[in-house]
């Protein structure tokens, strides 16, 4: 017997028959048979998700166990939330959480708007060849390995031969060993991130700008708007949905500060401001062999990121009608 779904429309009630489960499954089967090539192309991605994202979730349980590599995951005894208790009383972990949030907040404030500003600037460049050249130059750092990027940064800020200290020397300023001083780590880290990724990140926003209906600009020109007004009143509002989607993704990754770059740039002298959750997990898990504690920290990270992305998505949907799902 078909189920019914009552929908109220303009004060009247209509009865809409609901598909039975069997019918729905039939339709899905028909669709798969008809579009099998598309489903076949989906298989590698699904496999990737299963092997690298879902299967490892089995190992998450070690966050709640006194894990021993000799007893294995199944053989290790349960300890409940003991590791989480340890984490939240560990000063170094608390410091790593604070550092992660601080660096992510700085990234949100400075690094997130950078590609948007860059894209808006590129959009205003009229000379096509100049625009292409400038774009290529700013895209390039993205394709350089983080190891080389870190090498360049370390060299640039070196107290002896670094260009920064050399220029400061010309100005009569004493050399500073930037990378050993905690207060300089965050500006250098965020600045390096902007230099490396702002150009490449601008591609998404440039694509969004390219999608803005040209008639909107023509209409604004006839109405008397100048380029500045068009940027504020047409371009930015038109790419706002893209900005919000990218912001939600960024918020979802707030606990994922670029692990490679931190590992490459930090040192014990700068742990105070540089040590983030991921590097702490790396040291505890791989270097100290405390896999269960590291798993608990990783799980904590994931739960916080999940809550943040859900909240950001809900807020965005409520206030701007734009959301990831």
């Amino acid at each position: 017997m078909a189920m019914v779904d009552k929908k109220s429309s303009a004060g009247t009630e209509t009865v809409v028959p609901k598909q039975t489960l069997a019918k729905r499954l039939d339709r899905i089967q028909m669709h798969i048979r008809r579009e099998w090539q598309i489903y076949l192309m989906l298989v590698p991605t699904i496999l990737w998700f299963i092997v690298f994202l879902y299967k490892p979730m089995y190992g998450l349980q070690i966050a709640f166990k006194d894990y021993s590599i000799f007893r294995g995951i199944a053989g290790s005894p349960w300890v409940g939330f003991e590791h989480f208790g340890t984490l939240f009383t560990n000063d170094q972990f608390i410091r790593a959480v604070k550092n992660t949030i601080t660096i992510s907040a700085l990234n949100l404030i400075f690094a997130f708007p950078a590609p948007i500003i860059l894209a808006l600037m590129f959009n205003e460049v009229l000379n096509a060849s100049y625009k292409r050249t400038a774009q290529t130059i700013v895209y390039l750092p993205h394709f350089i390995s983080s190891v080389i990027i870190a090498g360049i940064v370390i060299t640039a800020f070196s107290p002896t031969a670094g260009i920064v200290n050399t220029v400061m020397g010309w100005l009569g300023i004493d050399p500073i060993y930037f990378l050993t001083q905690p207060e300089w780590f965050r500006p250098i880290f965020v600045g390096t991130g902007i230099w490396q990724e702002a150009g490449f990140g601008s591609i998404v926003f440039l694509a969004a700008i390219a999608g803005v209906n040209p008639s909107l600009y023509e209409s604004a020109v006839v109405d008397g708007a100048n380029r500045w007004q068009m940027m504020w009143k047409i371009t930015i509002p038109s790419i706002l949905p893209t900005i919000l989607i990218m912001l939600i993704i960024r918020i979802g990754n707030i606990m994922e500060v670029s692990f490679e770059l931190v590992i490459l740039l930090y040192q014990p002298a700068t742990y105070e401001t540089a040590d983030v959750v991921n590097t702490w997990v790396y040291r505890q898990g791989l270097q100290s062999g405390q896999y269960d504690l590291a798993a608990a920290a990783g799980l904590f990270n994931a739960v916080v990121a999940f809550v943040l992305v859900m909240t950001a998505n809900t807020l965005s949907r409520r206030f701007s009608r734009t959301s990831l799902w």
Partner: protein
Amino acid sequence: MSGVKLEGIVKRYGAVEVVHGIDLEIKPQEFVVLVGPSGCGKSTTLRMIAGLEEISDGECRIGDRLVNRVAPKDRDVAMVFQNYALYPHLNVAENMAFGLRIRKTPKDEIAKTIAETAKILGLTEYLERRPADLSGGQRQRVAMGRAIVRHPDVFLFDEPLSNLDAKLRTQMRAEIKRLHKRLGVTSVYVTHDQVEAMTLADRIVVMADGNIEQIGTPMELFNNPANVFVAGFIGSPPMNQFEATLEDSDAGPIAHANGTLIQLHGQEALRGSAGRDVIVGIRPEHVMLSAEEGTASIPIELDLIETLGSEALLHTHVGDVPFVAKVETHGEIGHLQGINALHVKPARVKLFDKETGRAIGQAA
């Protein structure tokens, strides 16, 4: 209100010339429609008037002012675009107010103008809605509202109805016509739809390949097309056209087309043109079912009858060339089945030179 005057307007993109020196004078308060097939240069011409395209050569004047080098905002024109160009992030009121805000019009004046315009266009209850929440017709009205609130000297319409369905197009056409009567603003309207052109225009400018083919009132173009292009473009269904050779007879000139003889009594100017190759043009609407005194008869074999309700289209051939007649049904089509001849008054037969395609002098 100002008129618009185009003198020798040329548009080139690099080495390619797309508008070839057109001359057009639009009188103040006149509604002029530029019509022609895709790529004929009509939208480019409109955009040159708006200032959205640079004029390669020639002069464009709005009122007495030469505006070739004047920025669009200073030309005192307002434009309605094909895809409405409504700002998706602004509601109806904000969309309509956009141009006024840019021009720093006082807020109370903006509110008053918007309220008045919304009332004229029936948009009062939609002022808070965003374009995405409006129907196609409502969006079109908002686009017009945005133009109206500016109180411009000239309205420019770039195929504003082409995104609407047939029913809505007819409705909006009437609204635009009413609005023009009410506001009396000089309007230049671009369309590829000759029905729109015929119903809206005070004068129609037919364009093809970057040239003006003919300028005239709708009825002038319908009754006296200057060439075969205009004859074929204006009218629905289009004018029947077939090749013929002129012959003289005691009763007057005759057009001989594939064994069919068409009397051209009254077109005495054609006497002595025997042997001249021409194109005969007969409007489907000018074909009659019964002979009258002096009418020319065309023997036919009926291929198909298309019933439109009060009218029917009779499809047949003159020689190998398709021929369509539009006749009244008076509520039934039974009497059309056995027809074996169609009739036309000689004065209704249009003749065009076969070589040049231009109309040959004839009685109206």
